[in-house]
Each structure stands twice: as structure tokens, then as C-alpha cells.
């Protein structure tokens, strides 16, 4: 099951639609990291709304994605974690350390916009 990675302006959106095997997750990770460079994306949104289980491997892969993307010079935000999933994750000690999260796609986009504006302020724009 391949996860589609859509380009929306300067951002990439990957919506996970069904539960994924470990191999699929790794493939998703590699695809995102590659596309970020190829498409010169400024941010990535990973939408996990459809997942009703997020295990340790998924957590690890998601946080790997976020850290790799940071090294590639873009921001990542994980959106759509269900309340029950969030609670279960925390109880199992699966915490997405240093990874931005948002309620849904809309929130994720506005988070990336805000990040972009901050970035623009920090680095003077070229004339």
C-alpha cells in the first residue's frame, strides 16, 4: 500500500489511509525525504487521521521523518492523531519528542505558514 505524497504549494502532504506495515512505513519515510529535496518543499504534513493504532515502530519512524526533514531544511508536522491513540501512546511511553503535532490538516498548514513567516523574519529577504 503506497501512500500518496501530494504537493500543495510549498508543502508536501502525505495522508496515510490504512494501517501500514513496517516496510510500507520505511518506504514512506524514504519517499518523503527524497521528495522534499526534489520538489524544494518548505514543509511536510503527515496526516494520520485514519490510524487507530500507532505502535512503537510507527512512532519511531514518524519522529525519524521529522528529524531527517529538519536536516533537509524543512519543517514537519504530524496531524490528526486521534484522542484515544494519543492517550494510548502516552501510556505506552511513545512520545514524539521534538516533533510538531497539530489537530488536523488545516491546523498543520497554519502551523507551517507561521513557521515560514518566522523564518522570513530571521533571514532577511533578498531584494
Amino acid at each position, binding site marked *: 500500500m503506497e501512500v500518496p505524497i501530494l504537493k500543495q504549494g510549498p508543502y508536501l502532504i502525505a495522508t496515510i489511509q490504512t494501517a501500514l506495515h513496517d516496510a510500507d512505513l520505511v518506504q514512506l519515510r524514504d519517499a518523503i525525504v527524497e521528495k522534499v529535496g526534489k520538489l524544494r518543499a518548505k514543509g511536510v504534513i503527515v496526516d494520520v487521521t485514519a490510524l487507530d493504532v500507532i505502535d512503537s515502530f510507527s512512532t519511531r519512524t514518524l519522529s525519524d521523518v521529522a528529524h531527517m526533514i529538519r536536516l533537509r531544511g524543512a519543517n514537519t508536522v*504530524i*496531524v490528526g492523531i486521534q*484522542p484515544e491513540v494519543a*492517550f494510548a501512546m*502516552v501510556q505506552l511511553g511513545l512520545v514524539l519528542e521534538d516533533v510538531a503535532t497539530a*489537530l*488536523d490538516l488545516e*491546523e*498543520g498548514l497554519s*502551523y507551517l505558514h507561521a513557521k515560514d513567516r518566522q523564518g522570513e523574519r530571521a533571514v532577511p529577504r533578498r531584494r
Partner: protein
Amino acid sequence: METNSGQELRRYDVASVTNEQPLETKRLLLKELVAHLREQRTQAREDWARRIQEANLLTAMSNEEIFAEATSVYDNYVEALATGTFEALQAYARNLSERIIPRGVETEEVVGIVLLLRDVLARSLFSKYRSDFAMLNRILDAYEPAANRIAITVAVGFVQERERTIREQQEAIRELSTPVLQVRERLLILPIVGLIDPQRARQLTEQLLRGIRANRAKVVVIDITGVAAMDTNVANHLVQTVEASRLLGATVIVSGLSPEIAQTLVNIGVELSKMTTVGDLQGGIEEAERLLGYRVVPKSSDTAESETV
């Protein structure tokens, strides 16, 4: 001699246990029994009510009430014996329980009075059939299983009713105790008052997470001014709640930590560095507004600007 009588006794036991009496006989016996109990109604009821009073049961009720209830229990009892169906008695037991539970009647009292009635009736059977031991035995064979079942029905009905009441009250308290309130667009507050046990903590977290999603909250202020004490479990649960909320994209501010709680938390070494803590609820809401980009401006000082930006 001894072995002989023992054998005889055993043979009799076997006969009664294996139900060698034909069903027809049994029904006739029950019929006779019921007729006898109906005949004895006045006498037995009085005996029963007197013994209830002597045993100091049902002290929450007046003597007249006891007698009135005794009458209906007696009639229902005989009815259950006569028909062999227990639904009516069950319904009555539930109804009775509903009426007497709020008055503080205890389980042992209810069980006690039912067993007393059983004793009174057995006594009257003894006196009637004392000349004919075999007949008495057969009558008791018919009477005892039914009487036991009645006693169980009434006792269980009472306990069930009580448990239902307790469950309802617990539910009500739980519902009441965890309101999640929206004070501004995308800002929730969760005031916690009273003791937090693991079950309540869990429910609290669930409600909060659901509230975050339903209201699309970005910032949540958890106010624990009303929490008197906190232990490691509760503190850890608080940390978990904060983490889970963050996974949903909401920032949590904890407000109103009392000096005692602050000391406890430092002493037991709970990892609180990830939490934003603010002195009181006002501070918490101000901090939340700051995070959301609101600015509250008094009307008089700056009329040119709107109240919130």
C-alpha cells in the same frame, strides 16, 4: 442399632433427594401448604411483625409501616409459592427496595426479615403436622426449595437495586466533576476540584482530549487550585495528559499549584520541565491569550483599537 437407624435415615434422604414423589403429589402438597398459609395469614403476619420488632430490624420504619409491608410481602410470598413463578415477587422486591433504600434500610435487615418469615411459616407447619412426621417431611420437601428461592429473590433484588443506585450516583458525580469549558475561541479550561483517583484521572484525560477535538482547541488551561494533595501517580497522569494533548496539537498550561503541591512534586521528583505552570487561573488565562495572540485592552484607554487583536 446405630448403623441400622443410620441406614434408615439415609434411605429416607435418598428418597427425598431423588424426588421420588410424583409431580402430581408435589403439586397437591404445595396446594395444601398454600391453603394452610392462607388460613394462617392473620396469625403468621402478627407473629412475623412481632419478631421483626423483637429482633430490632427495620428500625427506620414505624410499626404500622412494618405491618403493612409484612402483609404485602406475606401475600406475595404465598402467591409465589402457589404459582411457582417469581416475577411478581421480584418486581415487588425491587419496588420495596426502591422505597426503603433511601430510608437507610440495610441489607442484613432485609435478609433478616425474609429469613424470619421463613422461620415463622416453618414453625406453623411444624405445629400443624407434628403428629404426622412423614407428612411433615413431605410438606417441608415441597416448602423449603420454594422458600429458599423466595429468600434469594428478595435479597438479590434488594442488593441489585442498591447497586444500581450506587452506580447511578457514581456516574452522576463523575459527570459533574469534570467539566471542560470553552472560555474563548480555541481556549479551554479544565478546573479540577477534589480528589483525583486513577479512574477519575483517566476519565478526565479522555474528556479533555475529546473536548480538544470537538472545540478545536489550541490552548488548554488545567486549573488545579481545588486539588488538595497530589501523589506520584496523579502527577504522572498529569504529565501524560499534557503529552497526549500536545499530540493533538494543543498546548497545556497548568495553573494553581499550591505551595504544598509544588513542594511535593519537587520532593518526589516528577518530571515537570515539559509543563508550563502558572501561579493562578488568571495568570493561566492571560498566558493562554498571549499564546493565541489575543490582547485585552481596556475600552477607555484605547478606543481606536478593537478589544482583541
